[in-house]
């Protein structure tokens, strides 16, 4: 009875081959004139749609597509020039090639070609199906029937169409564009339209990773701090969040809801408010230093965010303020699910509270929240807000290229993009961050027992 059970496992190319072999003359012609089989067999509207797709594609390719593709080859050769004229305004800029636009149009052309291939395959399928139905003497579905099918058996196609278009335009296309930029020299010195940039292969990766120039002398320490930060930020938040949840869950404690709400407030306030406020409170001459000084506890200000070691500790501590309530929220429910009798029998056996925490609570909570922990780790590798809003990556360092001592790879990427326009290096770092996240989650997910087949839950 299940309508879902019919899934074809044939691969695309095999299907096209079979369609060509078994197809009659109309189907075969449809390989070249899209929609022909449908048109002749009476599915006029469907046929016309396919045909207009083909015409539109040919029109696009002639007008822009071919040029776009060939531009991909070397991203422009003609540099913009200034020409001296004999009469006012005496100077004229002769526009040259714009490598950035050429790359963009090239990528768009590739996307349109892929989209066209999908449409073409659908056309072959439709042509072949129409032939089969006619051969069996059946009645071809009318256009209305086709639309109806898109709300039933083919619902996934209709529902996914708009979301997928959005993702393609605003996520995949920009991402492909940026990934390609990692293989060009689109940096500070090669900015179109004044200058051209071109393909450089893996040179950026070499420069960033192994060159020994300032940029690779920046990459490795920043990478190291990113890892240290991610480990400490995740681990400390997790432990303290769980302890806080246990404290609130204690039998003797009343007003549990009130306590929870107090802590949740710090998540609820937007980070650009709370973190910027923290930054101001922790400034060298800010209220915290001021109060400590007037209380006579310190003689000169504490460089909370202006000295490397202090700044690193400060961002970790402030991150506790942000992160502990999250873990508390998540683990509260888990803790309440632990069967009470395990603790009872442990108590009878004379287990200390610490032993019970290490042997019972921790493993249980870890088991349930394993995937959450991995997410948190990846999230912390990419924790832009805390660093950017709080320390701005500072204190800045002359040994580093455009980075400060608390900069993570992502905030460095942001600075390279916005302040320096070193797009090629930014893209390279983006890819490296991706590799890091992918490796971490691959290793972690394989080891977590909570990662079960999704079908089990249905």
């Amino acid at each position, binding site marked *: 009875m299940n309508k879902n059970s019919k899934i074809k496992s044939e691969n695309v190319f095999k299907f096209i081959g079979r369609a060509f072999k078994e197809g009659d003359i109309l189907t075969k012609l449809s390989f070249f004139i899209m929609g022909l089989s449908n048109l002749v067999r009476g599915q006029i509207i469907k046929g016309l749609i396919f045909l207009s797709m083909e015409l539109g594609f040919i029109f696009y390719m002639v007008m822009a597509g071919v040029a776009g593709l060939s531009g991909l080859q070397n991203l422009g050769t003609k540099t913009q020039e200034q020409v001296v004229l004999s009469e006012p305004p005496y100077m004229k800029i002769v526009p040259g090639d714009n490598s950035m636009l050429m790359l963009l149009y090239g990528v768009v052309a590739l996307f349109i070609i892929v989209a066209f291939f999908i449409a073409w395959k659908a056309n072959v399928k439709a042509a072949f199906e129409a032939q089969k139905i006619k051969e069996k003497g059946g009645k071809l579905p009318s256009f209305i029937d086709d639309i*109806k099918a898109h709300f039933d058996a083919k619902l996934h196609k209709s529902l996914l169409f708009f979301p997928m278009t959005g993702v393609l335009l605003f996520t995949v296309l920009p991402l492909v564009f*940026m990934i390609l930029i990692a293989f060009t020299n689109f940096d500070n010195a090669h900015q179109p339209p004044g200058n051209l940039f071109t393909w450089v292969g893996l040179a950026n990766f070499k420069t960033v990773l192994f060159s020994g120039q300032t940029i690779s002398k920046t990459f490795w320490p920043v990478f190291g701090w990113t890892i240290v930060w991610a480990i400490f930020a995740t681990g400390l938040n997790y432990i303290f969040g769980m302890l806080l949840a246990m404290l609130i869950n204690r039998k003797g404690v009343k007003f549990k809801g009130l306590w929870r709400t107090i802590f949740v407030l710090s998540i609820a306030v937007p980070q650009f408010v709370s973190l910027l406020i923290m930054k101001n409170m922790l400034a060298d001459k800010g209220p915290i230093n001021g109060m400590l000084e007037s209380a006579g506890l310190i003689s000169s200000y504490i460089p909370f965010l202006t000295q490397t070691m202090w700044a690193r500790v400060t961002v970790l501590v402030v991150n506790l303020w942000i992160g502990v309530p999250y873990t508390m929220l998540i683990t509260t429910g888990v803790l309440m699910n632990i069967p009470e009798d395990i603790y009872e029998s442990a108590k009878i056996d004379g287990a200390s509270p610490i032993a019970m925490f290490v042997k019972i609570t921790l493993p249980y909570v870890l088991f349930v929240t394993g995937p959450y922990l991995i997410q948190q780790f990846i999230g912390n590798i990419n924790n832009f807000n805390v660093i950017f809003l709080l320390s701005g990556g500072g204190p800045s360092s002359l040994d580093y290229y455009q980075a400060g001592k608390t900069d993570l790879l992502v905030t460095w990427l942001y600075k390279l993009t916005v302040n320096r326009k070193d797009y090629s290096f930014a*893209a390279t770092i983006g890819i490296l961050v991706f590799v890091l996240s992918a490796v971490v989650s691959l290793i972690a997910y394989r080891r977590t027992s909570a990662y079960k087949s999704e079908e089990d839950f249905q």
Partner: protein
Amino acid sequence: MSKKTRSMSQAKKTANFFSYLVLIVLSVIWLVPIVWVILTSFRAETGTYTPYFFPKGYTLDNYKKLFTDTNQFYFAKWFANTFIVAVCSCLISTFYVLATSYVMSRLRFKMRKPLMNVALILGMFPGFMSMIAVYYILKGIGLTQSLVALVLVYSGGAGLGFYVAKGFFDTVPKAIDEAAWIDGATKWQVFTKLTIPLSKSIIVYTVLTSFMGPWLDYIFVSVIMGDNYDKYTVALGLFKMLEREFITQWFTRYAAGSVLVSIPIAALFICMQKYYVEGATGGAVKG
């Protein structure tokens, strides 16, 4: 025997006392920054920060000036901008997220697994990496410095965030769908007449999260809007007030603006914290 119980209850009392003590100390630490921003928003003395905690004088001027001093910054307008963008992108993203998650949870088709894997992989690239490319694409279609561009940016990729809602749909018994199919309902009817009414909580969650997005982002909007102050959203506007040339005059007003923005956002978040927990743990926690 009675002596032992008394010492037991005594120990319990001390333990409770210390629990409360720790909780109170922690609560103070957690509340200080929030109290400080509220106090600052009513502070009569201008200037950035003071070396003392409680202001010397209180005033409502900062709130008034925020709306009346419109020479450089136009807070009321920013509020309206953000609200419009939030409503539009929330409508689009909610549809995108629900459609995608329903399809991935309930319908079976050849490309399902590959698409889900692609979504996972795409999510692992740092979001700011493609920021500049998005900007150039928007520039290519002539949309930069407009609210439409913001709506597109916030809702365009929303389809990728289907995991939480998919987890929810996975828990709705499939037998209901199958029964409806047998009775001759189309899949579209099952989606609109059965699944959606059954999924109020996840719809509320999706609507609220996508509504909150534009209030919190200040990066994409700064790249897209540049220096067009008229089209700013509150987050970017408030951020701008803290730049060197404005901070002395605007800091207390920044605090006032922050309070005004934080109240609705905090209220929304506290309302939906339950869904947040379910989402983050994939329904593994039933608290």
